[in-house]
């Protein structure tokens, strides 16, 4: 297991996994934090604890399954397409719409929200980590270990970073495109059509993937540029918190 530590592709993979985790774990943690906020103070910690543990467990199971699934023919292509789509989505401004979800005020409701949200929102992270791990077990395990603190602590800090420095979002989307391209290079069924996976040629699809995400993402984002009604909350006179 440790001999792979010497290979450069290991470190590239590890950096990719860390990058992907930072980028895509934020949402999980936000849901956990906000779902717990609606609860009375005593129950909040329980909700956060339970939610985080459940998210981690779910993440582990899904990642192992994904790694296995990606080994099958054509699945890498599907996975690459999924990653490209996720990368593009990242670049689109989707934050202006109002939410139509219901508020849960019981511990049960909060936990249920967290679990469902975990499954849905972990998918992109899982695919990306499994893809970046390239079938290497060490990388996979390390990748999972890294996601744990990020789920628990990551969220708001990362999201604020992304808002302050929009270049981070673009870089993130490009990273996903890059990982998608790398995975596509390893698709066995397509080998006859792909450039050789050595030297400078091994960068063709990854770079193409990164560029694709950036270009398409920016194009689509430009179309959305409208004046969405601004959300302004008036604080009532008597409110002192």
């Amino acid at each position, binding site marked *: 297991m440790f001999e792979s530590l010497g290979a450069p592709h290991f470190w590239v993979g590890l950096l990719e996994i860390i990058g992907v985790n930072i980028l895509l774990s*934020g*949402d999980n943690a*936000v*849901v956990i934090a*906000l*779902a717990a*906020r*609606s609860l009375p103070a005593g129950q909040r910690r329980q909700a956060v604890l339970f939610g985080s543990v459940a998210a981690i467990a779910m993440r582990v199971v899904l990642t192992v399954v994904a790694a296995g699934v990606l080994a099958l023919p054509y699945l890498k292509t599907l996975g690459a397409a999924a990653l490209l789509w996720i990368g593009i989505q990242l670049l689109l401004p*989707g*934050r202006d*719409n*109002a*939410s*139509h*979800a*219901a*508020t849960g005020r019981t511990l049960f409701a909060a936990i249920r*929200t967290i679990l*469902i*949200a975990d499954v*849905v*929102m972990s998918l992109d992270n899982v695919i990306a980590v499994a893809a970046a791990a390239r079938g290497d077990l060490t990388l996979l395990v390390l990748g999972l270990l890294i996601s744990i603190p990020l789920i628990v602590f990551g*969220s*708001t800090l990362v*999201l*604020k970073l992304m*808002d*302050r420095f929009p270049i981070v979002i673009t870089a993130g989307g490009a990273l996903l495109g890059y990982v998608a391209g790398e995975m596509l290079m390893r698709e066995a069924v397509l080998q006859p059509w792909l450039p050789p996976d050595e030297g400078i040629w091994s960068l063709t699809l990854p770079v193409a993937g990164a560029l694709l995400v950036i270009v398409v993402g920016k194009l689509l984002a430009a179309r959305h540029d409208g004046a969405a009604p*601004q*959300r*302004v*909350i*008036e*604080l009532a006179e008597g*409110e*002192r*918190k």
Partner: protein
Amino acid sequence: MLKLLLPVDGSDNALRAVKHALDTRTWYRDLPEYYLLNVQLPVASGAVKMFISQQQLDDYYQEEGAARLAAARELLKSAGVICHARVAVGEIDGCIVRHAKELEASLIVMGTRGMGAVRNLVLGSVAAKVIHLSEVPVLLIR
């Protein structure tokens, strides 16, 4: 009616700006109306909004905003002036400029640097962008 928009982020600099706007109220013939604004960066993506209700989000932004505005509100209240406190969600500089326009404010009074103060910077990024974008005059306080 003279309306002053005071963007506040909870920093000392912002509070100094509010204090200035308060202390100089005698410059004007009529007592101005003070509008405090704190802008919160959005934390919820489309995915998060599938699970978290608008009410929960609003509660979060409101609580965070109220905390940042507390000192400024206290200052204005104890001076006995009309003070409106609001929390907006979005990109900071854009929200400030937009709100000033919607409010038909006569003047924006804000600090040069906020919470993210880096000592060497002459002017913080938000203040710089507000000056650049605003159609309403901007008064900057160190």
